[in-house]
């Protein structure tokens, strides 16, 4: 992280109240809010002008109030922008999380209510701005709750399951170690064991790991 310069962030949400609130929260967390717009298209304009590190945007925006936020993310990636993008949603929808992860690295998907947890929000923006991935724990919880007769998760130990859930949320090995109060080596061992048990490949790109884990959880 470049500590000398605060992160420059653009916000897109059709609810003015929320937009201002998010700006306040981020500014309180030492983040520069350089643009605040109401639609995905306007955000794309801002991104094209350059000079921002990350964007926070609502999924449901005008004109159709469906998935404009994700469409804007996909448009940015298609135009070659690699800035961090954090999508906010009223619902924890795994299908959306998968689509967001599928758009590439530096993406995140959080429930809107996380704005009342400034640390979570700020950390998520920092993560996506640095090319990491963030998935709301609620989404992971939903996916893990899905039950199957021949559940591959049943092959995991309790500890491995906790590690897997954090992997799915986009935590790096270091982050997992910190969260679970484990040594980095221990976490790496757990991760290797999990990937082996679940028949997943370790990917050099962090977001691919998240995507793979989410996909596995979703298709399980």
């Amino acid at each position, binding site marked *: 992280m470049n500590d000398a310069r605060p992160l420059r962030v653009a916000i897109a949400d059709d609810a003015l109240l929320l937009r201002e609130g998010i700006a*306040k929260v981020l500014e309180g967390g030492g983040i520069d809010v350089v643009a605040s717009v109401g639609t995905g298209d306007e955000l794309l304009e801002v991104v094209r002008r350059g000079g921002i590190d990350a964007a926070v945007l609502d999924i449901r925006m005008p004109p159709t109030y469906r998935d404009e936020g994700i469409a804007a993310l996909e448009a940015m990636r298609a135009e070659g922008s690699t800035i961090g993008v954090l999508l906010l949603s009223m*619902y924890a929808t795994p299908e959306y999380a998968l689509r967001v992860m599928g758009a590439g690295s530096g993406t995140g998907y959080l429930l809107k209510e996380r704005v009342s947890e400034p640390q979570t929000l700020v950390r998520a923006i920092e993560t996506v701005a640095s090319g990491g991935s963030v998935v709301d724990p609620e989404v992971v919880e939903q996916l893990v709750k899905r039950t199957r007769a021949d559940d591959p998760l049943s092959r995991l130990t309790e500890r491995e399951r906790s590690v897997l859930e954090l992997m799915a949320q986009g935590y790096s090995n270091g982050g997992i170690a910190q969260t679970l109060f484990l040594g980095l080596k221990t976490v790496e061992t757990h991760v290797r064991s999990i990937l082996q048990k679940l028949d997943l490949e370790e990917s050099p790109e962090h977001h691919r790991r998240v995507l793979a884990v989410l996909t596995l959880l979703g298709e399980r």
Partner: protein
Amino acid sequence: MAPGRKGRIARRTAVIVVVVALSLWMEVAGYVATPTSERLEVSYTTLHAIVPLVFAACAGIAWRISPTRVPARLMIAFVVLWIPQSIYYVIGGIDWLWPIVRGVDLWWAVIAGILVLVYPKGFLSDRFDRWIAGIALGASVVNLLGVLLLASPDAVPCDCLSPNPYQVVDAPTVFAAIDVGYRLVGVILALVIAGRLLVRWVRASVPARTVAFLMPLALFAWAITLAAQAVTYAAATTADTVLNTVSLIAIASIPVSFDAGVAHARNMRARVADLMRITREGADRGLWAESLARTLRDASVRVYWWDEERGRYADAAGEPIDAADANPRGSHSILPVASPLGAPIALIRHDRVLTDNMRLLDGVSSALRLSVDNGRLRSEIERTLEQVRQSRQRIVEAGVEARRRIERDLHDGAQQQLVSLGMRLRLAANAARDTDELQLATELESTITMLNQALRELRELAHGIHPSLLSSGGLALAVPELAGRCPVPVVVDVQAEGRLPELIESTAYFVLAEALANVAKHSGASRAWVRAHVVDEELLLVVRDNGTGGASLDAGTGMLGIADRVDAVGGTLELESPPGAGTTLTARIPLGGPLSA
């Protein structure tokens, strides 16, 4: 019934043969026994003998066609009672018999009168008729007693009688008064009956009149000759042979006109029945007008049907009614036919004389009303059904729309507000913490936790009302997400290229949601399968489980709700759920059905 009917016919034939034989034999015997000087002309005697034969023949017919057996029995009685007039020379020497015969020798006339009274129904249909019949019978009994107790051998001008053994007193004046009085009562009654018949005939229908004119005519002729005979009898002169001949012919025509009238009425009923049958079979309008003309025996009949669209009457070929026909003068009348609710159906232009035949025209209007009402009801039911179908679809669409709107209102309103509120509380909590107001900060933080719990519940609620994923991602995304929420593991297979009409998507979604809820609640299954395929312009939904089975479309509101949803979009639902062998629910929803319109 066949043997009973055969037996009845045989019995009746035997009765007729017996009375005819008796009548002929008596007639011949009477003629032979009469001294040559006293004999009437052979032609008259023959005619006299033919009258009962006519009655006997008509009895045979009346037995078959009359509504009751009374007329036929009266005719048979007539044949028997016709005999006494001509057999005094045969029985005059039998002293105990002739007064009785003399007492009943005019009863045939009473029978003939009653026969006229029972026309055409076969029974005495009103009080007045019963009074007349009662008076005639009473007078006949009085006359019989008068003859028995008072008659002397002079009572029959044949010089052939023995003394009357029953005679109590020889009072020729009293006897003559009774004898002549009886005949006068008879004449008066006959005239009353004839007058009554005439009134009825004038009021009757034209076709009925054409046949039934015989009856009053015969009765009048008979009554007049009877009067003349009574007068000549009172004057003790011999009646004219011509007068007697007219009288015989008039009497003989009574049963004939009786049968003819009844037969005609039957024929008329049969033709109206034909019209009803044609009506019931839904014949076309041209054919109907033809049958009507046949029924009414009026070739000039025209039927003009009400044309709802153009607001006018037109014939079967669509030619509108012209002004001359609509307001006919002179020979024709117009009969408007309307439905019970007053809606116009048709105009029948007919010969004015038929106006008198209101009962027939009433029957015809009823038939027409029935026919049109049937057709109208059928098309009304079809139209109503279509309206119900459309309105049900609109209701379902409105329901889907309402759900979407509520979800969006929650999303943009309450949820947004609560999120903002949470954020502000957080800022306040942070500020409180910064100023070391720890108690306030803790209070605010626990409020945030509660608020987030409320948000969570609101989120679940909004999702249940309308899943936003369905709007944005269609069945392909929403169904797997739905299946993921089911506590029973579900294998999902969705193959629906692109997006389907919104109403179909939401119907399918909620059908699957309710089906999976049933699986979770009732089936006891450990596994379920959901398939959503588009096959041949149809969305095929299959929800299968390995549970206990025994589900039914009738039991439980869950299944009913599913059936209603599928029905509303013109789809079909099948449920296969043998006990112990799982449940398979199959719904087929047409994609190109009423929804595409």
